[in-house]
């Protein structure tokens, strides 16, 4: 690419005359002289080279990388407009102004179409300085914008790579950790079984703690694996009927629902664009939590959805123990728990997984709750998938 644009303001006391390096493609010496005179009169400190043939042009333009090219249209064997082709071939972005004698409007438009920035008639040279200024300004803006785009692309690339690295790490770490952990969990359990009551009480306690710790680690790592897997599989998204997903979720939670005497209902739920398994994960985690964090009464859980302007709004409400507002954001953080393990089991990863999944589709998730009076978890999902658009949306049939 060519040099960065030259800033061309009218010269003043603070600003010494800015130098303009121009390459003139002109076979008529006096025409060239006229142009220069016009520019100097406007205050440009212009340094020029004049070329006549295409070969000369190609050589000079690459050598000098001028700020601007002023080309005559008619040059004998070649058209000044061909200079544009040469520039294009050399990947040079230098503004070209066609300065020429009579030129029909049609040809003028052709020049612009071919890439000339402007055209000025030789008997209207008064326009030339302004045309040059404008061309240089546009060039500068282009360069700036390109730079910004490049920087952004680089940052996005770095971020994507960093993310991929992190996910890879989480996956490999959890995966490779499972083997030695399996050994610890298995043998502490065997120890517990074989030697319970045969050593002393302290030994029983020690073995018990070790065994519990190992088992908990196993679940933790499985949870971590599940969490790190959320971003991985991008290919399985499609139109998902949330009603049928709810049916699956109710099946999966059947035992828990029965044990707790829970009543779980849902309204008419929409079809959304997502990975079906992940949608199921979100609903299962939210409904499961609603049942788990119950008070003295049997849990009553309701899942609803309504259409807002820009998204679907899902609501999972319960009559459980609620959440103190000051913890409302905290609970979505990985492994954050608000209760002792003895009060309510679990690792605190369910909501983090929900958040990761929902945000992956551009949605948001949050909770509205008070301590002691139940919670309502809300999350949004976009109305349409990437290939669907409002006017054209086909009816999504229930399976």
């Amino acid at each position, binding site marked *: 690419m060519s040099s960065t644009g030259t800033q061309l303001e009218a010269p003043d006391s603070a600003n010494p005359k800015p130098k303009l390096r121009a390459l003139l493609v002109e076979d008529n010496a006096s025409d060239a002289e006229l142009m220069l005179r016009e520019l100097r009169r406007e205050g440009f400190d212009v340094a020029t080279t004049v070329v006549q043939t295409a070969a000369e042009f190609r050589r000079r333009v690459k050598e000098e990388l001028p700020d601007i090219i002023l080309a005559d249209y008619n040059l004998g064997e070649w058209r000044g407009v061909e200079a544009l082709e040469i520039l294009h071939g050399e990947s040079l972005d230098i503004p070209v102004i066609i300065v020429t004698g009579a030129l029909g409007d049609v040809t003028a438009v052709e020049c612009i179409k071919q890439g000339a920035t402007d055209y000025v008639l030789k008997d209207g040279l008064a326009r030339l300085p302004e045309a040059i200024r404008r061309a240089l300004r546009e060039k500068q803006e282009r360069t700036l914008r390109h730079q910004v785009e490049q920087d952004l692309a680089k940052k996005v690339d770095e971020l994507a790579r960093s993310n991929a690295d992190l996910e890879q790490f989480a996956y490999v770490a959890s995966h490779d950790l499972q083997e030695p952990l399996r*050994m610890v*969990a298995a*043998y502490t359990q065997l120890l517990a079984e074989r030697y319970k009551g045969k050593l002393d009480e302290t030994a029983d306690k020690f073995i018990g703690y070790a065994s519990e710790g190992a088992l908990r680690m*196993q679940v933790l790592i499985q949870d971590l694996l599940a969490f790190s897997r959320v971003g991985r599989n991008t290919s399985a998204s499609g139109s998902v009927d949330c009603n049928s997903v709810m049916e699956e979720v109710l099946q999966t939670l059947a035992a828990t629902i029965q044990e707790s005497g829970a009543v779980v209902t849902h309204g008419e739920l929409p079809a959304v664009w997502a990975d079906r398994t992940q949608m199921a994960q979100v609903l299962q985690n939210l409904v499961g939590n609603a049942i788990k964090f119950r008070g003295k009464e049997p849990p009553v859980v309701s899942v609803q959805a309504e259409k807002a302007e820009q998204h679907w709004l899902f609501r999972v409400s319960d009559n459980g123990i609620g959440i103190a507002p000051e913890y409302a954001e905290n609970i979505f953080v990985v492994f954050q728990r608000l209760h002792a393990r003895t009060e309510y089991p679990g690792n605190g990863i369910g909501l983090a997984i929900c958040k990761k999944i929902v945000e992956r589709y551009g949605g948001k998730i949050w909770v509205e709750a008070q301590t002691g009076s139940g919670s309502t978890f809300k999350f949004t999902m976009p109305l349409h998938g990437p290939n669907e658009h409002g006017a054209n949306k086909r009816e999504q049939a229930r399976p």
Partner: protein
Amino acid sequence: MKPAPQLLIVDDNPADVGLAREGLARSAYRGQINSAGDGVEAMAFLNRREKYASAARPDLVILDLNLPKKDGLAVLAGMKADPELRRIPVVIFSTSQLNRDIARSYELGANCYVSKPGNLNEFFSAVKSIEEFWFGPVSLPPRGE
């Protein structure tokens, strides 16, 4: 009187071999259990080479996949290519849940594929299941000493 059943466990993790032995002890199996810690040792045992000259041919081989020196699939391929060994049923017993490991195992002639569970009780269940089936109703191929 029928000779005692012979089982060969091929696994590089002595802890896992220990778990399998424990699982078998809790089952009805009262036969002999031998183990090999890598693929080369496994083949030497099966081919009765050097120190294994008087080893008994196993009635069943429980084979892990990730082994040093020579991996499980190579052992499997070696067994199925050998007319003296190809009849011996092979149960792949591995933590790997990779589709390609399962597919390759069947392609190379594994009789079946059982995933090693992470949970101890499930592990024992799996071992019991293997023992119950292969040393239960199954007619094992004649040992052809």
